[in-house]
């Protein structure tokens, strides 16, 4: 029976009971409990089922390393799977449920897997399900996914109600870990005056020291911790933060910190998690160490815990893990657990020590307290299924075929030594060395992660550095070194009883037979046993990285925090090589999983992505705009009238523009000012045609290609004066083309005298289109816009109806058209004025779909429809816009390559279906026969296709092999399924070929 002790508990507040439920059962804990502690206080030993065999599992650790005690927390929108009970602080109203079992935690049918473990050995999935091939996807995988796995994913309808945020911060020295080493390092660094930040992942300062009985300057560690904290809190150059985990160390001192603000207090109106994006000059990892389990048969039975964890539960939370415990160890440290248990009034059946003798200070103290110590012994096997009932012992060097004695107990504390937490040191390339005394990997101070200056930027101290005894002197030195301060001797001294060396025990007993080895768990979460790693070695897996993936050792959500060293020690032994020769797997961020919410930060809801709005956006919204995304802009696709269908609205808008007067919000068009003495020369390089000869006051259409000759943008250039041009780009192309210009100016033609300024958003631009366009503008008055004064492809500046206007006589519709730019702040008023003045003329706005149809009727190409990154201007019959006089322009050479001048290229033509129907988007023109991939052979494709309200039939443009040479020919397009559609190749200009209508 695990239960709460009547007294004690460093971290709990007995006056504040907290109610919670586990699998619907009501339980009570105390403020300060972790969920794991609270569950143990309620004798809830069994917490979940393992991944593969569905073995019963309970709490094994007391911190971030916990592999077993994962639960589902919360419900509905707040539901989260795979939450570690050992790092979940209890709060009133918490709801938790166990996972990975069916139908119930106590009675799991899938645990039948456990009765035949020889069927699920290393590589089982690979070996068993490889044939027949097609079965994997449809049969095996769905079944395996149901039986293997941890928590369920949240419902696809769930919407996380919490808020999350990120924050950027900067410091000189970042100390990660708030144990006594981290506190000292922070203090020593801060005393030199540099800016110091200290993070602790739990809610408490001081780490293990108070539990382990460390004394500082002769007093309990807690005294020194409190004093040091007060000092740090008063220093203006120091910031300290609990519940903030150093998640990852990246290049250039960039560190991610994961702060859990309201996980322990969900009632607070605050962001749940905050992701710190810290840029630190130097980083000190004071991340402590993690105790290693021992590999004995049944080491996964609920009630078997790390010795340090059991000590934590006794001292910090006043939890008795059982009435009678057994401690199994290969070192002196675990005796602390026996001593703590005895002092708390818990029975200690024995300390089972694998070493031949145990005569250090701690074993001696244990004996003095009357605790039985059995040396040279190990665990043969644990008795019990869903909880520990006893333990059979054997001689440590035996095969374990027979037991020497049996001890009754209901909890077992195990300790195989400690492994420094080297994760953060290793994330950015810090190397490790094998410590022959402590039998662990620790940071190699000569090979730290290197910064841009070639010097190490990560230091380490305390247990994270492999200092398992006194740590303050090392921490002080690390703090001063990180701060670049002069070295002074440390003042406080921490002291611990002397400890005898541990004796490595990677398998218990050392010569265990197969039956025992296949019950020795290495990776608790992924169900990897000693026998699996040994099998992998026999099958030829020598690399630790390959073995990891073959056996899944260390691949679970705990990333092998407990299993890593034990696993590679077993592998090394199987391979007959020393552990350093095997090496470790790679340590990758994050240290423990961080929430997706923290990664998304503020990017959700209204701030998910910028939505760009033109100055006239609100009018569109108020007038039933049916929106479509254009880059990050929203543009009206059409404006729906009451009861109107989309197509009808579009056709109405097209007809109105052809017959009357219509408005288009063209504000999104890119507008880039290019100015300077070399502006003309620059544009001659950017465009395929000549721009330098353009006269001020005139406009010219131009094409821009990339270096390979492929068409990338088009638009009208207006010459403003001798030195400056206004370049219009496509709506989606403005930023890209501006960057393209700057790339050439800054990297290639840096000595050319050219400036570019992106003026896209300075202007609201309105296209006034249709035969009555001039009539409308004349009503506004102020500018002479007659054909004589402002001919086609010219522009003029003036006051139009009182607005500061620049009027361009350009047309993308084929109608009489004026594009009028006014300052953006006047845009809405200008639009309102046009709508009001045009009301009695029947003015209508039109959207992007009408824009597309109007241009398609005229055979005007659209970047992104007729082009896709593989199309050169010649494919589109735009040879007229390619200068033959210029020596060079971007794309000139590309266009001359063999494939580009092949006469069989697909070229632009118009397409008319024989029955007048509208061709499907992107339809392919098919010819009889199959290609090498057994697909239908093709000779062209549709690039734009619409119903033309003007012509009363479907029209399309497409790229067809030798298209322009085949005018009048009928070709066949593939529709849905076997449907075939006949179309005739025609001129792409369907409407007003001579251009009379735009030139009035």
């Amino acid at each position: 029976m695990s239960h709460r002790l009547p007294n004690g508990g460093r971290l709990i507040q007995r006056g504040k009971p907290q109610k919670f439920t586990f699998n619907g059962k009501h339980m009570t804990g105390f403020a300060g409990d972790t969920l794991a502690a609270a569950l143990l206080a309620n004798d809830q030993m069994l917490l979940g089922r393992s991944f593969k065999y569905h073995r019963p599992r309970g709490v094994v650790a007391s911190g971030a390393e916990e592999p077993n005690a994962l639960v589902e927390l919360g419900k509905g929108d707040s539901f989260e799977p795979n939450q570690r009970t050992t790092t979940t602080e209890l709060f009133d109203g918490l709801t938790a449920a166990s996972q990975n079992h069916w139908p119930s935690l106590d009675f799991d049918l899938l645990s039948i897997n456990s009765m035949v473990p020889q069927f699920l050995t290393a590589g089982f999935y690979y070996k068993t399900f490889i044939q027949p091939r097609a079965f994997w996807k449809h049969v095996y995988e769905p079944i395996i996914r149901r039986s293997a796995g941890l928590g369920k994913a949240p419902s696809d309808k769930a919407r996380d109600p919490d808020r999350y945020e990120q924050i950027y911060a900067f410091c000189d020295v970042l100390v990660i870990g708030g144990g006594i080493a981290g506190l000292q390092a922070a203090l020593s660094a801060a005393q030199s005056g540099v800016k110091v930040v200290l993070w602790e992942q739990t809610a408490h300062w001081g780490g293990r020291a108070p539990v382990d009985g460390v004394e500082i300057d002769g007093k309990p560690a807690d005294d020194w911790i409190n004093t040091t904290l007060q000092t740090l809190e008063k220093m203006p150059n120091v910031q300290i933060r609990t519940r903030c985990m150093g998640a990852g160390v990246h290049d250039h001192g960039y560190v991610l910190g994961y702060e859990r603000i309201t996980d322990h207090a969900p009632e607070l109106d605050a962001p749940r998690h905050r992701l710190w994006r810290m840029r630190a000059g130097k980083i000190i990892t004071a991340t402590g160490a993690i105790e290693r389990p021992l590999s004995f048969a049944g080491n996964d039975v609920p009630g078997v815990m790390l010795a340090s964890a059991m000590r934590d539960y006794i001292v910090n939370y006043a939890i008795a893990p059982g009435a009678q415990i057994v401690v199994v160890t290969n070192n002196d440290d675990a005796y602390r657990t026996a001593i703590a248990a005895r002092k708390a009034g818990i029975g200690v059946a024995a300390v089972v020590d694998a070493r031949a003798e145990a005569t250090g200070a701690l074993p001696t103290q244990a004996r003095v307290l009357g605790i039985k110590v059995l040396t040279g012994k190990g665990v043969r096997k644990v008795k019990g299924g869903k909880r520990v009932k006893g333990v059979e012992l054997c001689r440590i060097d035996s095969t374990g075929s027979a037991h020497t004695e049996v001890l009754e107990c209901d909890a077992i504390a195990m300790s195989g030594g400690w492994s420094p937490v080297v994760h953060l040191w290793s994330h950015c390339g810090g190397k490790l060395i094998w410590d022959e005394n402590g039998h662990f990997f620790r940071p190699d101070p000569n090979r730290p992660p290197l910064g841009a200056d070639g010097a190490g930027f990560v230091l380490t101290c305390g247990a994270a550095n492999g200092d398992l005894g006194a740590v303050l002197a090392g921490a002080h030195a690390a703090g001063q070194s990180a701060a670049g301060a002069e070295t002074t001797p440390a003042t406080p001294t921490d002291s611990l009883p002397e400890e005898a060396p541990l004796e490595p025990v990677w398998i218990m007993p050392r010569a265990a037979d197969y039956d025992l080895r296949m019950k020795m768990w290495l990776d608790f979460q992924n169900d990897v046993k000693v026998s699996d790693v040994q099998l992998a070695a026999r099958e030829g897996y020598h690399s630790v990285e390959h073995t990891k993936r073959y056996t899944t050792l260390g691949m679970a959500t705990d990333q092998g925090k407990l299993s890593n060293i034990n696993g590679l020690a077993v592998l090394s032994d199987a391979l007959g090589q020393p552990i350093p020769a095997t090496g470790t797997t790679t340590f990758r961020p994050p240290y423990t999983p961080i929430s997706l919410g923290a990664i998304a930060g503020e990017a959700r809801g209204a701030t998910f992505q910028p939505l760009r709005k033109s100055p006239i956006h609100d009018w569109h919204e108020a007038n039933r705009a049916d929106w479509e995304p254009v880059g990050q802009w929203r543009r009206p696709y059409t404006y729906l009238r009451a009861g109107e269908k989309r197509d009808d609205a579009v056709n109405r808008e097209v007809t109105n523009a052809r017959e009357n007067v219509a408005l288009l919000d063209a504000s999104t068009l890119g507008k880039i000012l290019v100015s300077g003495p070399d502006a003309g020369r620059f544009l001659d390089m950017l465009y395929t045609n000549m721009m330098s000869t353009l006269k001020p006051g005139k406009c010219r259409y131009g094409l821009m290609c990339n270096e390979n000759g492929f068409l990338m943008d088009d638009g009208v250039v207006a010459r403003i004066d001798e030195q400056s041009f206004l370049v219009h780009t496509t709506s989606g192309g403005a930023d890209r083309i501006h960057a393209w210009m700057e790339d050439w100016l800054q990297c290639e033609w840096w000595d050319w005298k050219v400036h570019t300024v992106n003026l896209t958003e300075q202007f609201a631009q309105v296209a006034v289109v249709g035969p009555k366009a001039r009539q409308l503008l004349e009503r506004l008055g102020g500018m002479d816009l007659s054909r004589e004064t402002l001919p086609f492809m010219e522009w003029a500046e003036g006051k139009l109806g009182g607005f500061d206007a620049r009027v361009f006589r350009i047309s993308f519709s084929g109608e009489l058209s004026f594009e009028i730019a006014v300052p953006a702040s006047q845009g809405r008023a200008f639009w309102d004025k046009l709508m009001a003045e045009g009301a009695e003329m029947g003015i209508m706005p039109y959207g992007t779909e009408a824009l597309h149809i109007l241009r398609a009727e005229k055979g005007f190409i659209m970047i992104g429809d007729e082009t896709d990154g593989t199309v050169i201007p010649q494919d589109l019959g735009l040879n007229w816009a390619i200068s033959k006089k210029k020596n060079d322009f971007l794309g000139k050479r590309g266009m001359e390559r063999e494939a580009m001048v092949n006469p069989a290229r697909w070229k632009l033509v118009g397409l008319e279906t024989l029955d007048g129907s509208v061709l499907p988007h992107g339809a392919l023109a098919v010819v009889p026969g199959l290609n090498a991939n057994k697909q239908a052979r093709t000779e062209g494709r549709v690039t734009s296709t619409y119903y033309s309200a003007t012509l009363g039939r479907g029209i399309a443009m497409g790229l067809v092999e030798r298209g322009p040479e085949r005018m009048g020919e009928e070709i066949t397009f593939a529709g849905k399924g076997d449907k075939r559609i006949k179309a005739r190749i025609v001129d792409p200009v369907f409407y007003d070929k001579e251009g009379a209508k735009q030139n009035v």
Partner: protein
Amino acid sequence: MSDLAISALPGARFEGFATVAEAGLQGMITLRGDLGTLAKALSDVTGCSVPETRKITQAGANAVAWMSPDEVLILCPHDAAPAMESSLRNALAGEFATVAAVSDARAVFTVTGPAWRDALAKLCPVDFGTLEAGDIRRTRAGQVAAAVLVTGAEEARVICFRSVAQYMFDLLSVAASKGSEPALYA
């Protein structure tokens, strides 16, 4: 025409641990060229000297902010910008210099209160501890370009493109929302 001119989000305001407010119309002129060459015209027209790197100079209602080694941004009353633009163009005729009014390409927000740095630190990868009144920093906020002008001990101005004014306002409001005080600078 100023009676017809409106800013991007007139009157938008959010009270959190810092106050976010749209600043209304602001005259702005981009001036590019060799800063030494520009100095006289700049001083004659605005009264301001050429700012040092990442600094703002001020004279009466006008200010000039450093933007890059060959660009400054003139800030002036919105109504005054067109005249100032043509004065500069005249003064710099014949030089390799570019003058462009950009008043309406932008939206401006003030973030005020002792904790303005704590709000902006959530959006901009900038060490705001190094910025003081009279500094400018070009950066990004969330997913869009931004310039932060520190205009007082407890006030900063954030300039962004006009089209993303709503996004910027929403971002700043989220960052300054009560309960989310990070206690980083304040």
